[in-house]
């Protein structure tokens, strides 16, 4: 099946104002059937107001072997986190 039918990544927006979030993947022959399949598989319990489908082949992913060089150098740069400010109580939630 997977050799004949392309894989698609599915993104759902749960509510207006929120962004589309990756929820999983489905198989479908083309983009029209992919949208229908996404609707049928991932919105059965009222999860969404909008669906995106993207061919999985169109996604370029980072190499797991480069995880160390990609992500570890940030670990000791805590000054990049905005946690060094005193926020006055009057501001409330930011």
């Amino acid at each position, binding site marked *: *099946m997977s050799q004949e039918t392309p894989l698609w990544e599915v993104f759902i927006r749960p509510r207006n104002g929120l962004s589309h979030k990756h929820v999983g993947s*489905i*198989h479908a*022959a083309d983009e029209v*059937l992919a949208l*229908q*399949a996404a609707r*049928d*598989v991932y919105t*059965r319990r009222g999860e969404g107001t909008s669906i995106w489908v993207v061919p999985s082949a169109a996604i370029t992913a980072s190499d797991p072997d480069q995880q160390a060089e990609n992500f570890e150098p940030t670990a000791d740069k805590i000054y990049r986190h905005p946690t060094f400010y005193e926020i006055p109580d009057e501001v409330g939630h930011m």
Partner: protein
Amino acid sequence: MAVHDAILEVADDCLVLGHRLSEWCGHAPMLEEDLALPNMALDLIGTARVLYDRAGALEGKGRSEDDMAYLRDEREYRNCLLVERPNGDFAQTMLRQLFFAAFMHPFWQAAQSSKDEVIAGVAGKAVKELAYHIRHAGEWVVRLGDGTEESAVRMQAALLALSIYVEELFESSPAAQEAEAAGILPERAAMRAAFDATIAEVFTQAGLDMPEVTFPQTGGRTGLHGEGLGHMLAEMQSVHRSCPGVTW
């Protein structure tokens, strides 16, 4: 004959087709369709439940939706022949669904102004569900009709097998005529233009032509069914009949 008999006809159409679709559950060719087909089945069975309840209330003999669904025999079922046709292959399942939805979508659209508020209410919900059934089944009919050599042959065979059952959709039984005159259900014959337009749009893309039907098959509304319905009901009713009133 009375109005509740006419409501029963529509309810039986929905339950029988819903049950047929549910037979795909666990057997569909891919996970995506294994969910899509039961989704449509649940839409139809949900509609059937409301209609059985309404028909039982109007009949006034205290019959519940379960009594209607599980305790009537084949000859008492009033569904049209199209919906009871066996699933066959995917071409037959999808074409059967398209024919039914192409008829029921305008039917529910018109039924939204029914004088019976339960019918008007269920129509408002069903019209959205059926719009999706047209889209889903329609896309498959296009892809199978205009797909590979094998799929085109199968879709052509499905068309020959099922087109003889289409005419019955537009026929109003004496009970239906009564309900139509009372403004409870829309006139079946009036759905022709919308049905033809939906089918033409799909068939043009699918490379299909509606065949000439010399001898349309009818009889479902008088309880004369094909062999398959009895088998289907035997399975569908077996639990309720062997353990009456069971709940879980």
